[in-house]
């Protein structure tokens, strides 16, 4: 114990001094724009998933009604309930945002809880938007401190870091001071949860994690606001978050203290054009291109893809299982299936990941021809690339490469791309287009709204 509490600030306090000083005017336009796009993306995803079993079950399991909106659901819930449902709905199809360099979902844990708190406490749109920016920035920076090490210890960073990001977002929106915000992070650290055992049988707990993190962070902020004493050293302490959840890492806390307000990590948020695992996207782009060129699937002998070693465990192996995914959800994490379905359909949106589609013999026949070789030079996780090498029946070879992820920092999706994805998602969810346009306008003008009461029109 060498810290002098009167003189030396903890890591949480240093970071939260920045958050507590944020207001809408101090946030650069580029950062605000990313937050708005993430909000649009999230809202469209909530509509798209509104009739899915796992969303209906979360709504059914929630026992408290209240004044808050779960987008696309008729029943209004208490703030925690709305945060949970919107978090699960956003991430349910693995179609939501991601972060390049240190992969994690960002908006699904933050935006639902900030919206719920704003609706519950009647906050102006500018505070809501400030809270969203704060929460997104918190997730991105917290995730840089020890990337990869939470996964290694058996934890899902969405659940762990998400709880703190949500607390940062809600606490900032509510205007908590530096130390209350820091205690909110400390309390959220004791609520952070999420193990990876869903990997074994495709159980739905992965979908649960962002929603649970969102409501945990919301509760943590409210507990801190009530004066409850949480640890200020929860990030760097001997028993702190990184020691417990990322014990193999050497945490670099400079990500939480340096360049605050100058460098905005949340500007590196990437949006997904396809409804499946992020790292698969550049491979799908290769296959879509070949499909459009008119390559004959029956004339393909085999397809071998160069790949980064870090992808093999989750997306390629066990290869026999990945060739025949047991459900639409499992198919999202099968490199061969995604590539094959993209080849035939020219897309890999929600329609391509139904259970029925995983039994489509035409797709499966092509998927079975696809395998991989590890390229030790592959840049993963710093950059996500794509490659296919087709050996045709006539002995000829066709090769395609993608140098990076579309939707990421190197080739961002435009506002128009995001709006188009939003409209497709709204249609998938069965809403009339006019309702979608109204929700889109609400999201794009959030910062100017007197409050977020417009959300109430998104029920049902």
């Amino acid at each position, binding site marked *: 114990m060498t810290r002098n509490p009167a003189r030396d600030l903890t890591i949480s306090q240093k970071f939260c001094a920045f958050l507590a000083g944020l207001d809408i005017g101090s946030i650069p336009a580029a950062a605000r724009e990313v937050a708005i796009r993430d909000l649009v993306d999230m809202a469209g995803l909530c509509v798209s998933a509104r009739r899915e079993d796992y969303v209906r079950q979360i709504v059914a399991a929630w026992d408290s009604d209240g004044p808050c909106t779960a987008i696309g659901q008729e029943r209004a819930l208490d703030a925690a309930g709305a945060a949970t449902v919107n978090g699960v709905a956003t991430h349910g199809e693995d179609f939501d945002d991601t972060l390049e360099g240190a992969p994690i979902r960002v908006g699904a844990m933050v935006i639902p809880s900030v919206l719920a708190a704003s609706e519950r406490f009647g906050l102006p749109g500018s505070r809501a938007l400030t809270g969203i920016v704060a929460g997104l920035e918190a997730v991105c920076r917290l995730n840089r401190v020890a990337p990869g090490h939470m996964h290694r210890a058996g934890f899902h960073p969405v659940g762990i870091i998400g709880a703190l990001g949500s607390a940062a977002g809600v606490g900032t929106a509510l205007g908590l001071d530096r130390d209350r915000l820091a205690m909110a992070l400390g309390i959220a650290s004791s609520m952070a949860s999420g193990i990876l055992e869903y990997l074994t049988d495709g159980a739905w707990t992965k979908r649960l994690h962002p929603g*649970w993190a969102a409501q945990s962070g919301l509760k943590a902020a409210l507990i801190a606001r009530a004066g409850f004493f949480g640890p200020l050293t929860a990030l760097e302490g001997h028993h702190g978050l990184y020691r417990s959840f990322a014990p193999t890492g050497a945490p670099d806390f400079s990500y939480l203290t340096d360049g605050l307000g100058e460098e905005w990590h949340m500007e590196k948020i990437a949006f997904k054009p396809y409804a499946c695992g992020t790292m698969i996207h550049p491979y799908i782009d290769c296959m879509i291109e070949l499909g459009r060129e008119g390559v004959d699937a029956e004339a393909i002998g085999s397809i071998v893809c160069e790949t980064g070693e870090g992808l093999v465990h989750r997306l390629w192996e066990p290869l026999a299982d990945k060739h025949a995914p047991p459900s639409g959800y499992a198919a999202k994490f099968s490199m061969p299936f995604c590539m094959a379905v993209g080849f035939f359909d020219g897309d890999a949106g929600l329609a391509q990941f139904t259970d029925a589609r995983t039994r489509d013999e035409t797709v499966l026949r092509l998927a079975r021809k696809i395998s991989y070789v590890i390229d030790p030079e592959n840049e993963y996780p710093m950059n996500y690339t794509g490659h296919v090498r087709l050996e045709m029946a006539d002995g000829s070879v066709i090769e395609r490469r993608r140098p990076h992820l579309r939707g990421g920092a190197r080739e961002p999706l435009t506002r128009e791309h995001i709006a188009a994805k939003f409209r497709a998602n709204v249609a998938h969810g069965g809403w009339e287009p006019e309702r979608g346009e109204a929700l889109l306008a609400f999201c794009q003008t959030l910062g100017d709204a007197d409050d977020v009461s417009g959300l109430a029109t998104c029920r049902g």
Partner: protein
Amino acid sequence: MSEPRSVSDTLAEWIASLDPADLTDGARAAAAGTILDTIGLIVAALDTDYGQAVRRAFADPGDATVFGLGEARATGAAAVINGTCGHGEDFDNTFEGCPVHSGVVVVPALAAAGEEFGLANAQVAKGIAVGMEVMCRLGLVAGKSVHSAGFHPTAILGTMGAAAGVAAAMGQSPAQIRDTLGVAGSMASGIIEYLADGSWTKRMHAGWSAHSAIRAAKMGAAGFSGPRTVFEGTHGLFSAFGPSIEPEFGLLTRDLGKRWEMAAIAYKPYACGTMTQPYIDCAVRLARSGIDIAAIEEITCEVGEGTVHRLWEPLSEKRRPTTPYSAKFSTPYCIAVALLFEDAGLAEFIEARVRDPRVLELAGKVGYVVDPDNEYPANYTGHVGLRMSDGSVIEERQPCMRGGAREPLSRDDLKSKCAANLAFAGRSRSGVAAIDAFADRVMAGEGPFDAKSLNRQLAA
């Protein structure tokens, strides 16, 4: 399913088939004693600073009982408040073998569930017995592994135990119970950074776990899938939260229903850390023997190595604890108040005592030596050696924890403790009879679960 039965399959089948009439007398008595002890502790803490803060933060109105509080709350809120207050003074039950506090997670969860679902006492009785049993058995599997990974066993294992208990009380099918446990594994949380600054998150863990357990059980009931290998899987609970051991799951699944581990639950005679209690017994006996406190030169205790980290070091800080709460985890302080006041109840852990120069002077004389043969954690022993100013040495030993299996507290002891706790909160001691009768009624399985009548009697 042709797959081999998972650990949670075995648990789920036992829970679903258990008839409340088959609870043994020992199990019923342990559960009834725990209900009595827990409710007294909840009432005692309602008006403390942390009790008020958690009540402000969880103000959602509803129909669920907070014991001793006039107004009802939403189900989850009542569970958080009851659990946080019950565990607030670290005066609640524990378990030898792994210090899990089952009462303050299981009783709040089952009380809230009993009201939410309108259950009969027989169902609540089954739920409390199952919840405590699963939690204690998980403690036997875990040993020290959860703590040494940086997590709070009461929080992690409590979420699982209470979820099993709520599922049992709801009468869930084996498949639903399995999903409940799988979902609960993704909600289990709680780091131990409160050790750094005596912040209040340890208290919160009991309540938050009770709240999570109810949510998990409702999701399991709604059909949300959780991993069936949540305990033993490659990415399961123990590989994430207790990676240092090869878990022996027979301790969890052998002789279920035949042997009730929870029947050996331990109650605390003193309002502080479990392992300090046998030391306090020694000090109280020395004080009662009439030794001259002023003539004590030095106090040396033989201790188990595993207790040094939490209860003895850093020694200079443990000799001068900064708050009443951190004093509970300082063996030097506890020995000093026991020598001076012949007790270590709630009244010995208040601000004035922590600043009392007589206490601090005496605590400053207390030190330890590690005894490599000490049985901790299999048995909790005590030893106090006094070196007097005339050179003589006086020693006292306690071979086991009083309140534990080797020297249990009687029901009358528990009633006296409850009376003292009610008096500490300025409540009439007459409430003890009402709580005592309520505990027996629940565990006898007679009639509907009715916490509201008890609250009316406590208010009278």
